[in-house]
């Protein structure tokens, strides 16, 4: 009889629900491409910083896999190092996005209320950023619990589910990147 693990089913459902929220914003972004009559246009987006940012975020998927594998093998201290690297890469992404937004606001005077481009850009990228921050909070919780000795290798499956969420945040970035920086630009 087919009876899947409840943690996995629950996490897949959560990811499905979150994907639908993202799809709503992606649809709105695509719908409004080129509809801004005034103000800065998508051409003001630079690619250099965002590519570095993306590399950091995508690498963090690999480091979190390494962390989960280490915990499964019972190598706690290796796991915490990989986990800390993941959090650093995620934090780098958050700071990088803040830097990018700072530039857009001060050099190009693009604010959320400036025009439809600002509205859809900040809300879609911001929604993703919010999820990165939630993911970082989850990972940091695991790290703090781990450093205080509460996480054993029998908890590896729970940590694995947290890593699924992190992979989801990464996968969404692929969609957001393609929408905003490839199709929309």
């Amino acid at each position: 009889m087919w009876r899947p693990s409840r943690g996995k089913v629950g996490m897949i459902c959560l990811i499905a629900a979150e994907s639908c929220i993202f799809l709503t914003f992606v649809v709105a972004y695509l719908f409004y491409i080129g509809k801004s009559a005034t103000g800065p246009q998508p051409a003001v987006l630079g690619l250099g910083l965002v590519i570095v940012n993306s590399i950091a975020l995508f690498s963090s998927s690999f480091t979190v896999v390494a962390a989960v594998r280490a915990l499964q093998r019972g190598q706690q201290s290796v796991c915490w190092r990989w986990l800390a690297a993941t959090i650093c890469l995620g934090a780098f992404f958050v700071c990088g996005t803040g830097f990018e937004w700072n530039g857009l606001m001060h050099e190009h005077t693009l604010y959320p209320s400036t025009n439809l481009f600002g509205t859809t850009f900040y809300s879609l990228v911001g929604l993703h950023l919010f999820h990165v921050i939630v993911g970082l909070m989850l990972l940091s919780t695991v790290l703090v619990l781990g450093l205080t000795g509460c996480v054993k290798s029998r908890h590896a499956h729970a940590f694995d589910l947290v890593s699924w969420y992190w992979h989801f945040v990464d996968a969404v970035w692929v969609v957001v990147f393609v929408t905003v920086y490839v199709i929309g630009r």
Partner: protein
Amino acid sequence: MTLSHSHPTTPAEGTQTLGARLHGWAVTVDHKRLGILYVCFGLFFFVVAGIEAAIMRAQLAQAAGKVVDPATFNQLFTMHGTTMVFLVGMPILLGMGNYLIPLMVGARDMAFPRLNAFGLWLFVFGAGLLYYSYVGAQGLYGDSAAPDVGWFAYAPLTNKTFSRGNSTDYWILGIMVSGFGSITTAINLLTTILAMRCPGMTLMRMPLMGWMMLVVSVLVIIAIPVLTGAQIMLLLDRSLGMHFFDTQNGGSSILWQHLFWFFGHPEVYILILPAFGFISEVIPVFSRKVIFGYPLMVAATVSIGFISLGVWAHHMFAIGMPPALNAFFAASTFLIAVPTGIKIFNWIGTMVGGRIIFATPMLFATAFVAMFIFGGLTGVMLAVVPFTWQLSDSYFVVGHFHYVLFGGTVFGIFSGFFYWFPKATGRMLSERLGKWFFWLLFAGFNLTFFPMHISGILGMPRRIYMYQPDRGLELWNMLSSIGVIIQAIAIVIFIWNVVVSLRKGRAAGDDPWNAWTLEWSTKSPPPEWNFDQVPTVGSARPLWDAKNPSDPDSHHERTA
């Protein structure tokens, strides 16, 4: 695993102080208590929304009515619709699923008991936010207190320019928060159904209710986040000056309609499929026959789930979409009538040749089938594009969706309520009062909503706060309003029935209806751990097998 099991030395409820008992209900993670709380909150808001409707019918009973002013009327229909969909339908249906699904699939609790409690209290908080608007939303503008933009809150009416004050913000936040609650409950139900079934309970041996709730959960997980996303956009528009739905700055009010109805149409199936589930349990038991065409019922449920994601723009025929889109959405709407029709024939097929017992649950189930056919037929009429052009936003539409949502969902809820009340409380509801309740509600319902089709065809627009005399609308509106009085009497009898039966009702025993599904194999009310021993099942009707060991269903089961 979980902390849900009470310590064996906990004193019985009767000997505890009131404070301790209330505390027990507030901190509970038991799916049965949470389910009961959902249903109680839902019934409370059912009465609230009913009072709102009654005030509207009082206003409309006569031409040029003067009971309420136009602004209050706008608030009343907005709050009535919002309350019925989000604070009555959703909590009662998901709550009954919450109570029944673990019992039906032979589990000791939901997959995530604490998440379950979190979902309930999110719903209560959201409901509180929505109704707090009556006292807190006025802002500094001296404007409307409660939301007054209609339950689908079309842009640009929700724009800060037209909806000043904070009422729309309360509408957004209240529905968003209770929507998060619905999503967590759906995740929980889906996981319970897939991952917590007892040994032997394959998917094709689940009670049909399990299949319905499975599809409903999928629809909630897909549809509610889209509403949440649209509401976030609206909130950003209103609070950060963004332009998603701001038509003055290139935003699109049509986008809101697409996003809202992409949620809104699956939502009506979210509201009807659990009721399908209830009567799919009731009809076989009271016809003393196995359900007709179980695999087809499953297939029809799944196809309804799929097709319901592709019919949303039939709510938007009147906005001037391209003909190709109109044709597509008309065709998909006709298509969804096919699996729904299959279900109707399966229920009738179950009744044919059965020894039908017309106890109150069966009365409601039978009325459900009849009323749902009626509402379904007017639905197919409204799928005809030119017909909708003629009658869009008229009382015909109001009559149509009340036949499916009241004659369908609410009758289904009462069918399930009378059927499972003995299991949840250990006492039977009075059959005599139950029959009075049924016939009065049935008569009052038809008297209220049937004339709306006629007043709609005569040209009465929905949401209008008054109409001029001598338009031929007086008689039909008066009949609708008289029907409300009859329905109100019925509801009073229902509440009286519940109160009296809780105190003095006949003891139910474990299995008062001689039924076949697992929930009837445990005590009434079930212990906190549901089953002393986790059951093992060999067919879709485990209790039939236990009662008829010489001819168990498993001998007749086709193995795929």
